[in-house]
């Protein structure tokens, strides 16, 4: 073995270089990396600040969500991604000590306008939660409830059509068509979650928010929901919060990385998972800090 052979490089003190993770250099106060703004925005968030009492949970976040895209929001626990998601259909209104500042628009109308009624807003911007929460009613009634209360139907046949169409779009129809009047709570976890998705799309929303929709599901049910998201994005705009980075990589067009209440990076998903621009994003998706 010659003295300059590869073996000796193993002990080279310079070998541990590479891209440094310099938190000071990439300070959290810096401008977001990537392009937050778009001319195809369905929803636009500008300078959003959210407080729980005195504690600030979201710091000056601006982000556009494009029409018919799947936008994934990732980040460590407590980074503000779920709080951000809930601002998109004013779910935070139900929390007494929560204060929201800034502007959130849906088709250029500020949803925090005083005149905005949250009930039709939440029909336009539906939400699917982490834990499947079907109503303790039949499968049919779970889906029919929304269109009925929002006055979207006048005839039973029309309602039947919406129920079938929604269940089909949620990839559940074939599994439940023979037991539509059985209880929704008797379905498996994955089926319940698809029932909740069917319930959401029954009122014909424009945007679907998903807050860790697969975290309580097994891999098969997860794969079904992910497949469904790809189909749904043809007609809906989807924003999903997920702890599974592989899921974000699989289902989304763009990914936003949140850290300590700040939007650190938003970029094409391919870019984020192969070559993120911000060192904090890199550290998170490669599992370099907890």
């Amino acid at each position, binding site marked *: 073995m010659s003295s300059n052979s590869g073996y000796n490089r193993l002990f080279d003190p310079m070998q541990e270089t*590479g891209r440094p993770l310099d938190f000071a250099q990439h300070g959290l106060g810096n401008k977001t990396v990537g392009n937050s703004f778009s001319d195809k925005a369905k929803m636009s968030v500008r300078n959003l600040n959210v407080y729980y009492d005195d504690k600030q949970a979201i710091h000056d976040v601006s982000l556009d969500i494009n029409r018919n895209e799947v936008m994934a929001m990732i980040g460590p626990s407590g980074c503000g991604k779920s709080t951000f998601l809930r601002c998109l259909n004013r779910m935070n209104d139900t929390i007494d000590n929560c204060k929201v500042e800034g502007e959130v628009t849906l088709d250029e109308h500020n949803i925090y306008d005083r005149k905005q009624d949250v009930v039709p807003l939440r029909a336009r911007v539906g939400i699917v939660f982490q834990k499947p929460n079907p109503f303790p009613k039949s499968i049919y009634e779970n889906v029919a409830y929304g269109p009925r209360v929002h006055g979207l139907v006048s005839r039973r046949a029309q309602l039947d059509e919406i129920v079938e169409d929604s269940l089909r779009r949620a990839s559940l129809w074939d599994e439940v068509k023979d037991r539509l009047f059985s209880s929704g709570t008797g379905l498996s976890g994955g089926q319940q979650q698809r029932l909740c998705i069917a319930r959401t799309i029954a009122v014909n929303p424009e945007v679907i928010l998903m807050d860790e929709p697969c975290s309580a599901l097994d891999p098969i049910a997860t794969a079904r929901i992910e497949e469904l998201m790809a189909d749904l994005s043809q007609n809906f705009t989807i924003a999903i919060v997920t702890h599974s980075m592989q899921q974000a990589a699989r289902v989304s067009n763009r990914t936003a990385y949140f850290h300590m209440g700040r939007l650190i990076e938003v970029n094409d998903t391919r870019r984020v998972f192969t070559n993120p621009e911000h060192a904090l994003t890199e550290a998170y998706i*490669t599992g370099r800090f*907890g």
Partner: protein
Amino acid sequence: MERHISQRFDSDLEALKSQVLEMGGVVEQQIIDSVKAIESVDRTLAEHVLSVEDDVDRREVLLDENCTMILACRQPAASDLRMVLSVTKMTRDLERMGDEAQKIAQMAIALSDDGAAPGGYESIRHMGALVQKMVNSVLDAFARFDADKALDVARADTQVDREYQSAMREIVTYMMEDPRSIGRVMNIIWALRSIERIGDHARNIAEHIIYLVKGLDVRHTSVHEIEMRLNKS
């Protein structure tokens, strides 16, 4: 780079890096020995080069297995993903470099059987030295994750290609002057061709390193374009 939360993942990646450098060291020595064997018509050394091949193949298989395990078990992303992908490609290039060194060794054995060629040894010595330096530098660039050093290797390949063309012109004159020597001169040509191919593989590895470090895919790109893209990144 910060450590992973999973220390075992760190160990897996560090082991991968060490294994590439070890394999690189073996191949580098194979190249040094094969060029020396043909220059000095040393049959024993040439046979030694041939005997190392099994070791190189075994290392390639082991590295592939380890990369597969990391992909399957860790689902790496970003720089970790680029590391694993680059290693699978670099391993292939290293193995092929070993194959070329074997070919050079076979030419050395043929020349020791048939008698020395009338010329071309100076070109072998010169190009051999250039390529050995490239291989050495590219392994250093990998060890240090140094994209600039990798770019230097890509630049050096252009010089090797020029030297190869010039050597070919010179060797053709030997064949024209003495057609009886064509058989022996052909051995020199094949050896030069293998040296030139080793340079190409070193350049490939340099490109994988640039991808690994900077996330830029610079395959099928001129050195000038690589420079521009690196400056922009």
